[in-house]
């Protein structure tokens, strides 16, 4: 029942996100002949279809849209219910607060997983229409990176929506802190030396998981990276649970 409640609350955002990601993938594949020259001009290393797909979907535009969707899907803390005057109904359910938070987080995680599944299958099925091909395994290899990176992104706004009352404040603080996190990971030396950049992680560019020139999978183990980002996301969700339990709502 609680799962259904959480699904109903976030279904519009999820469906619009899915439609947007699917739309971007379709446009990039079906109009490949029009976009390829521009992409090759902007990125001198782009010579073939896989490299084009990487810089338009898996490592750039599509990935960015997934992250934005994760930021929006993360807005699900109890403060939101408080703002909408529905908190009484939610807290009146015979369920403890940690379970409420965990259910929201789990539904969010499943939604991120579902969104991450879209690009590999859409690209794989539509590529033959433009006389191109992408091995399904190439796209599916991104699945753990997109799911875990997306969940880490999701947890940032989830934490904001637990901390801040204003609905738009949570989104604004979440997206601004995300941008600052990216700037710091890219530019400040102590942080730059560690694999902390979630966008690069999602694109497989941390730890040489993807070859920088061919943009093909190298076969290098990515277990430590995946475990690190999973741990970060779980820690943030645990903090959200702890804060919500103690909050005087």
């Amino acid at each position, binding site marked *: 029942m609680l799962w259904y409640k959480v699904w109903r609350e976030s279904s519009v*955002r999820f469906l619009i996100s899915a439609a947007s990601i699917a739309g971007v993938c379709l446009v990039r594949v079906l109009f490949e002949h029009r*976009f390829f020259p521009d992409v090759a001009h902007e990125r001198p290393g782009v010579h073939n279809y896989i490299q084009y797909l990487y810089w338009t979907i898996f490592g750039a535009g599509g990935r960015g849209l997934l992250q934005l969707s994760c930021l929006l899907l993360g807005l699900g803390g109890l403060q939101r219910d408080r703002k909408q005057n529905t908190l009484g109904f939610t807290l009146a359910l015979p369920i403890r607060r940690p379970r409420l938070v965990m259910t929201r987080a789990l539904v969010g995680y499943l939604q991120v997983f579902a969104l991450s599944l879209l690009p590999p299958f859409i690209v794989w099925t539509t590529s033959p229409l433009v006389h191109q091909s992408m091995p399904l395994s190439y796209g599916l290899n991104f699945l753990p990176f997109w799911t875990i990176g997306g969940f880490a992104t999701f947890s940032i706004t989830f934490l904001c929506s637990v901390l801040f009352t204003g609905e738009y*404040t949570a989104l604004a603080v979440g997206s601004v802190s995300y941008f600052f996190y990216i700037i710091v990971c890219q530019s400040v030396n102590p942080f730059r030396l560690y694999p902390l950049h979630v966008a690069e992680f999602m694109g497989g560019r941390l730890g040489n998981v993807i070859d920088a020139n061919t943009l093909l999978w190298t076969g290098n183990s990515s277990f430590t990276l995946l475990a690190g980002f999973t741990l970060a996301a779980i820690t943030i969700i645990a903090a959200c649970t702890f804060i919500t339990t103690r909050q005087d709502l």
Partner: protein
Amino acid sequence: MYWYKSWCEIRTVILLGIASIAVACLFIVFHQQSMRDQASEPTTYVALVWKAVYDSFVFDIFFILSIVLGSDGLLHEKTIGTSGFTLALPVSRRRILLTRAFVGYCAVLAMALTPAIVLPLCSRFSGQHYSAAQALGFSLLWGCCGSIFYAYTFLLAHLMEGEHSAILVAITSLMAYRFLMAIPWLTHVPMLNIFGIVNGEDMPFFNESTHLLVGPMPWLALLVVLFIASVFVFLAVRRMETMDF
């Protein structure tokens, strides 16, 4: 009175926007040397400011916050159940929406002006120089183009009720618009590309090698942009006037 109500509703986002843009600019100015050292090719200070402030990080913050600001409205109030209080005020719907749109647009302008104040002032402290005229020129572009991002989301927020749907649809459709602008026969009319006007990329008034605004500003294009933004707000007003709630 209604001005104050609108201000109270969005002041956190406005103040957060101004503060975050200022902090991002300060960060870039004071880390300029390390950022330039990491660049793949030799980069001047002016080029770094253009890339980091007007083309990527800070512009991204401005873009997202303009859209977040535009996504609040009467339909959202209806969803959260406070529209009854707002509509009970002895003010017409038209005035409510126009006031809100104006206050929101002033916030977009304030955010657009922030780099023009921070960059020239703080560049001196890091031993660099950034012309105030250049910064003001880019702020003008941001202020006018930001009106479209804001007004377009404002219109969407009065067309669809789903929570945060306006934000998602706005960003996705603006991405689609950006893709469209890459179609060769549309690239012949650069002024159609608002993402080019906003930072000067591929525009006749911007020098790609010095990263400076050189020619006369595209006044006609900016006026058209402001006009389109006004039309979006007007359409949102018309929609709310005819809705039954």
